[in-house]
């Protein structure tokens, strides 16, 4: 599948005379394929917003290559801008205009037909309040307006930086369906969020960033599987075959723990290998399931940001790929 969004070795350094330099992005890579809903995850201050801003030409990068829809950006931004809809971190609007005016001004600046304004207002549920000034809107209503402004262009690539911020439960669920529908209609969606349950539900693939570097990426289930540390549960048609199976698997270098009616395996790279080994022994698998971990625990493990009792983790205290803090457990070569 062609990449809609490609980032390679992106760097952004903030220099301050007093506090020295900060590498907000430190050789970050990312790739999003067409038609996907892609989750962009990372702890606070890891560089998500910086990445998206850089991508959209709002920030000047210090190095690296980026392309959107096959065009090098920021050079070709004028060409692709019409196909990229974006909201960047709780966008603000001129407070004294109504939502309709705000959108209508954007639409006419971007040569979008005027009737599209009412379409998107309907889509985000602001139809009946569109004539009110943005100043009077609640947080969630402003967020909905922001989503509307991103959808206005009917873009090929939709970038949403924390779109769920401030949305009510119904709004979040609507956002989820909306995202899915948009993806089905062929739109590629990049979604940054801290609500990992949400990401797990709607995203096809994810990129996880920590301290300006990618720590994991790939389809959601793969990332999950990889980081369930290869734990797999196996059941056989006949419980009596379990010891034989345990034997065969142990010989192949897999750590096996026997249970009453199933086996727990650890260190499995590819679950398919288990099936093959057992089939060679004439043993037939009735269930083979990677032990599910949720995205949240994988995220906490990957970024090393799980709360430790009695400690207050500070921002920027997270996993640095290739850095000295790298721990053995998460050094599985994800990312880079």
């Amino acid at each position, binding site marked *: 599948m062609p990449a809609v969004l490609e980032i390679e070795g992106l760097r952004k350094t903030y220099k301050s005379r007093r506090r020295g330099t900060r590498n907000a992005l430190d050789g970050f890579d990312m790739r999003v394929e067409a038609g996907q809903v892609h989750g962009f995850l990372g702890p606070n201050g890891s560089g998500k917003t910086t990445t998206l*801003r850089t991508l*959209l*030409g*709002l*920030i*000047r990068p210090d190095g690296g290559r980026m392309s959107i829809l096959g065009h090098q950006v*920021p050079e070709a*931004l*004028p060409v692709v*801008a019409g196909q*990229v809809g*974006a909201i*960047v971190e709780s*966008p*603000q*609007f*001129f*407070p*004294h*205009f109504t939502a309709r*005016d705000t959108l209508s*001004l*954007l639409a*006419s*600046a*971007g*040569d979008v037909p005027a009737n599209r304004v009412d379409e998107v207002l309907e889509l985000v549920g602001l139809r009946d309040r569109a004539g009110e000034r943005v100043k009077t809107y609640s947080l969630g209503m402003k967020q909905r307006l922001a989503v509307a*402004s991103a959808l206005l*262009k009917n873009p090929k690539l939709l970038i949403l930086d924390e779109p769920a911020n401030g949305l009510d439960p119904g709004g979040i669920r609507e956002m989820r369906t909306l995202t899915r529908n948009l993806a089905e209609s062929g739109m590629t969606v990049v979604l940054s969020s801290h609500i990992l349950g949400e990401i797990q539900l709607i995203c096809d693939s994810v990129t996880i960033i920590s301290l300006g570097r990618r720590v994991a990426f790939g389809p959601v289930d793969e990332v999950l599987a990889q980081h369930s540390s290869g734990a797999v549960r196996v059941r056989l048609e006949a419980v009596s075959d379990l010891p034989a199976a345990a034997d065969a698997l142990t010989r192949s270098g897999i750590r096996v723990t026997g249970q009453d009616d199933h086996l727990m395996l650890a260190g499995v790279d590819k679950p398919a290998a288990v099936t093959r080994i057992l089939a060679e022994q004439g043993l037939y698998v009735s269930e083979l399931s990677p032990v599910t971990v949720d995205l949240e625990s994988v995220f906490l493990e990957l970024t090393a940001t799980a709360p430790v009792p009695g400690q207050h983790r500070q921002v920027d205290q997270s996993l640095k790929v290739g850095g000295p803090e790298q721990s053995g457990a998460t050094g599985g070569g994800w990312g880079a």
Partner: protein
Amino acid sequence: MSLYRTELRRLTKRRFTRYMTLLGLLVLVAVVLGTFFTNQKLDADAVAGAERQADRQYQEQVRWSEQERAACEAAKAAGTPNDGRYPDDCSMITAPPREAIEASWFLPSTFNFRETFPETLIPFAAILALVGFVIGASFVGAEWSSGGMMNLLLWRPKRLTVLLTKLAALLTGMLAVTLPAAVAWFAGFWLVATFRGTTEKVTSGVWQSVTLTGLRAVVLVLVVTTVGFALASLGRHTAMALGGVVAVAVVGQFGLGILLEMANVRFPQVWLLPTYVLAWMQKKVTLQDWESCNATVFGECKPETFDITWQQSSVLLVVGVAAVLGAALWAMRRRDIS
């Protein structure tokens, strides 16, 4: 083109623009009306009245000086010590001659188009320039501080085009207000002169001259508007432009003025901006140094003078606009937007 139209629409949609424009126009109307009601036409009646008033004043003076002389003589006769209240020679107390009291002092003020109208173009330019400055500053300043600029750049990534298009829309708007206002200003004062003064001796040469002055007023309004816009864009906040101007006015001008005064510089006004604005409007400002003396053939003492012409002012305006706008564009190109 669509961006230009959009920005024009944005400009006119803003309530601040509307109210400020309205306020400026109301002040202009007030000036015209005020002039209308404080002036009168000079007919025979008015002249005769003034003549009568001058007479009355003369009589009063005569009466008063006679009283004083009498008091002086009485004091002398009584031998009271002269405490300096009266001169030694009481006959020195006399009324001024009748010719010294001119009837013209008692004439009501009248509006002479040829003489007075050109001066009125200075407050005209000043008021509209002020309006232009705050509208220009708030137009782009609010856009920066509210995040609207960032939103727009997601749609139109060419930053310089965006900023310059905004400026073009702003100047179009200002021109659309200033030109009709100027025409109305001319018409208004023509009416004032017709009904409350005189339109005598307004030759085509005079017309040409005031039209040119009017055009320079319009140019001044546009220049100040541009500066307000550029300053606010540079500071990304409306208040930055206003603060910048206050800083320049207080520190740069008053402070500089005092400093120059203390340093005994010959023509301190040469270093002050208002001189150049005045020179731009009046074509020439002549500064005088009263401490030097150039004797003339008639033996009088003439102060040394220094001329500042509108050409010099125009150089300053061009350089000023280029510097501020250039800085704003440069910052727009380079800065990170968040």
